[in-house]
């Protein structure tokens, strides 16, 4: 299986994860937001699969670009442009790499994080997806030597811990921020979806 096919597998796994987690993510968002995150992400990834089907991409970078455009056009709200930016920056980082190394993938994750932070102006502790993505990138960098699959696994685990860590926090960005102290006690839906997406990608790459 070549790298493009592996990337496609990862995207299919992410789409499946968003389908599976749709209700859960929506419930998380209902608690501290407007209750649409699961629906949004599910719709976006379904659109991504359609787009990949309609015009099959030739490189990992093109796969990620297509996902980005699908998310950007179908997710809406805050998560749409944020995940759209993440995939777009990752795509740019991988451009020209037909068979990306673990270091390339780590760099792509890093670019994604930088994009989200720049676009959303959020830092760790603001109770957003950054709380999952930033520890994931750190873990990936540390696991760079172990190959792509192990590296993604490490990233996914760190993201899961990061998402859990948002529970006690008060949100400072996004819709949840206006709740003030009332947001504490709930996991951030965007952090949760980040962890699920990375876990799905890791599983897909491990399995292939």
């Amino acid at each position, binding site marked *: 299986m070549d790298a493009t096919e592996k990337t496609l597998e990862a995207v299919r796994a992410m789409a499946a994860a968003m389908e599976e987690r749709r209700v859960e993510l929506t419930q998380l968002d209902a608690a501290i937001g*407007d209750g649409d995150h699961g629906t949004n992400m599910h719709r976006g990834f379904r659109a991504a699969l359609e787009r990949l089907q309609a015009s099959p991409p030739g490189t990992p970078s093109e796969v990620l670009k297509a996902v980005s*455009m699908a998310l*950007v056009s179908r997710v*809406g*709200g805050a998560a*749409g*442009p*944020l995940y759209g930016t993440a995939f777009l920056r990752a795509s740019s980082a991988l451009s020209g790499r037909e068979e990306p190394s673990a270091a390339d993938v780590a760099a792509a994750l890093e670019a994604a994080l930088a994009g989200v932070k720049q*676009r959303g102006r959020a830092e760790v502790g603001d109770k957003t997806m950054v709380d999952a993505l930033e520890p994931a990138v750190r873990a990936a960098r540390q696991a760079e030597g172990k190959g792509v699959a192990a590296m993604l696994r490490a990233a996914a685990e760190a993201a899961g811990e990061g998402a859990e860590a948002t529970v006690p926090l008060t949100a400072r960005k996004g819709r949840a921020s*206006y709740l003030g102290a009332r947001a504490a006690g709930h996991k951030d839906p965007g952090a949760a979806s980040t962890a699920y997406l990375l876990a799905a990608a890791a599983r897909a790459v491990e399995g292939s």
Partner: protein
Amino acid sequence: MKKIINDPARVVEEMLRGMERAHPDLVRLLPEHNVLVRADAPVEGKVALVSGGGSGHEPTHGGYVGPGMLDAACAGAVFTSPTPEQMLEATKAVDGGAGVFYVVKNYTGDVLNFEMAGELAQAEGIETDYVVTNDDVAVEDSTYTSGRRGIAGTIFVHKICGAAADDGRSLAEVKELAGRVNGSMRSMGMSLTSCIPPERGQPIFQIADDEMEIGMGIHGEPGTERKKIEPAGAIVDELLGRVLGDTVDFSGSEAAVMVNGLGGTPLMELYIAYARVAEVLEREGVRVFRAYVGNYMTSLEMAGFSVTLLKLDEEMKRYLQAPCRVPASRPF
């Protein structure tokens, strides 16, 4: 829910089709994208203005597309930001080679999406820039916003920057002017009722028959205070007091004034409110250069209104008076 609609899920598409058919001399629809562009877009050599946001605020945004104001308006679902893809399509359709300028109201989704659209457009070689309007003095952060919200004052940015772009000003100049207008205007609103978004089918908030909400947002997001309804004069005094008491010093200045209806309030009441606004401004030594009374930025059928003051300089005055031809100006 009492509405003249066919299918709650298709209100935006059908509305846009209606706008295109009603005003074919002014606007054209990019059909797959829910974007209205000037009928004659792109205009070669002119900076193009693009705005947009959730639907349900009509005549904002599509009603302001036409010569002298916007080159394109992107319509999201009701109270939901349009996507970067729509914005990118709008950008490509109106780019006349002099750059594209986005007028963005400060709602998280709108800002994120327009920023991303700008990035995508730059990648395709189109120069873009943007302003984020935040004229609402009511609250600092809200359901949909970090920082102050952009509300009805945004129409002044459309008008003034639209005229400036017509006048051949550069992208950088338009941006500077937009920032100046945004920095010189302040707004605040109130409502008597909630609206009912078609897909939701029920009111966004409950409010008693004798209560009003002060400082609420145009999506029905909470304001600063819920209290008993007061006479029009007292309401105006409170809203205008907050506007005048904010960081722009209006005293002794010339101002554009807008009393903006939220949709469900009769024009009669807006003029009653304006009568008091004029009185207060006279007392405060603010000269009214021009008054705008009507439904400029609505929340579906919500009853209520907002007041906006814009402190004018000579350049703004000139552009405010320049001709424009858009559906919202009710071309007879």
